[in-house]
């Protein structure tokens, strides 16, 4: 069983706010899934390489040139930000 402290730590790493009752709930649920996946310890993987993609993935590059988007699309993308001023996205002070 993972501890409450661990749940709080993971939640903070993942930038997820949790209420006290949720911490307890997630502690139980995460533990039961982690207890299940521990099953993989039975498998001999000493000579096996890791697979990240089922197909061979190669880097695909293109010329480093700006692609023009129509203004309407650009406007739409900016409009999707919840807080903005003119054509800028507003954020909280970082420092």
């Amino acid at each position, binding site marked *: 069983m*993972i501890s409450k402290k*661990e*749940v709080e730590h*993971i*939640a*903070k*790493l*993942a*930038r*997820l*706010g*949790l*209420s006290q009752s949720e911490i307890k709930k*997630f502690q139980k*649920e*995460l533990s*039961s*899934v*982690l207890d*299940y*996946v*521990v*099953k*993989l*310890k*039975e*498998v001999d*993987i000493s000579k*096996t*390489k*890791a*697979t*990240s*993609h*089922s*197909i061979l*993935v*190669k*880097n*695909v590059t*293109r010329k480093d040139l700006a692609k023009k988007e129509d203004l309407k*699309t650009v406007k*739409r*993308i900016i*409009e*999707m*930000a*919840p*807080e903005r001023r003119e054509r800028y*996205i507003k*954020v*909280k*002070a*970082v420092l």
Partner: protein
Amino acid sequence: MELEELTISQVHLGLVKKKFSALELTKTFLDRIEKSDKKISSFITVTGDLALSQAKKVDDLISQGKKIGKLAGVPMAIKDNILVKDVRCTAGSKTLENYIAPYDATVVKKIKEEGAVILGKTNLDEFAMGSSGENSAFGPTKNPLDLKRVPGGSSSGSAAAVSANISVFALGADTGGSIRLPASFCGVVGFKPTYGAVSRYGLIAMASSLDQIGPITKTIEDTKIVFEAISGKDPMDSTSLEFKSKKPNIKKLKIGIPKEYFLKGMNKEVKKVVEAKIEKIRKAGAKIQEISLPHTEYGLATYYIIMPSEVSANMARYDGIRYGYLSKKPGDLLNVYLKSREEGLGDEVRRRIMLGTYTLSSGYYESYYLRAQKVRTLIQEDFNKAFQKVDVILTPVSPTIAFKLGEKSTDPLTMYLSDIFTVSVNLAGLPALSLPAGKVNNLPVGVQLISKPFNENNIFKAGEILE
């Protein structure tokens, strides 16, 4: 035959022979959505104006005597995690409740070029995370064949809409069974293509090494038509591939039956239905062979490490700043993140983000994530070995029929077990089809047909024998 029961090929024939117009057909479907979707909640957004304008264009082409493609004028629906320009795309989440897509997904661009008629966006488990269709922030979809039961997830609305004849076909997406399971529970055909066959550009990412878009249709013929239209390499998705579908095996098809997929605890009636299909394909001249996929029992555990790990990375973008829900509670930057994500994301999404964060975190990476990636190799090797002997592998899609709403939603692990027969296919990147095989207690049971990458024609050939 009623208009709403038509398949893609029948619609095409009807339009060309001028038995009905695309506008008439589209109005029939929009009318059906308005009248009968309340019962099953398969749509989140209905795009009536878009559909009518698309239908009119097709009618104009027909009246001008121009040739039209097979999908032209065919009313269809799109899972609401695939972007359609200028249409809301929610991914079934509160966080994207007001998000308007700024561009078309590549599959949508292709479907539009073919002249298909977009009826709307279908319900799903939030960010495609779920096996029942109950995790949507907009309420659960219900199984049209029994309103007390789930349609299966996460492409719940897409499968339910096709099953209820309120869409001729639909697009879904499959990360661990999200096309095949609902297709099986709703009695329709669902196809997950080979990883890389269909561009993922414009699909809201869940687990990028596993996600793949595919069709949900009424027949295999329709699946072939849609797959042909949406597949191909795309410069916007570096994992999409140029490929040529292999020709089907013209000699006797060899069908492998993996013994690990017929578990002791499995529903006996479901087993009987699947066995009857094995008998049918044997009688049609295929060679049946028992095979072994020894790492099958580790598939689910591998999946539930790799998928949440990728989820935790992909979901980091929902920060309440660039798009999505922003909490009204005051605070500093950290609090904006914490509160916006707490209030905007549902339980299952947060559970998977936390699982993935844990398995990727320092001290656990090797014993969870790296280990799972290695077992993933072994699972893929199991399939490679099996495909040296057989052309197609036949299994059940699920050990059970559609379960009752609420039956599994209190225990995440029990819910995860619904994916036991479907996840290994995604880990190995293989194409697989779910095909209606029969009924148990009047509810559909699906068989799964799996083949080597880009050998989907063998799947279609076997499927047409069984259809």
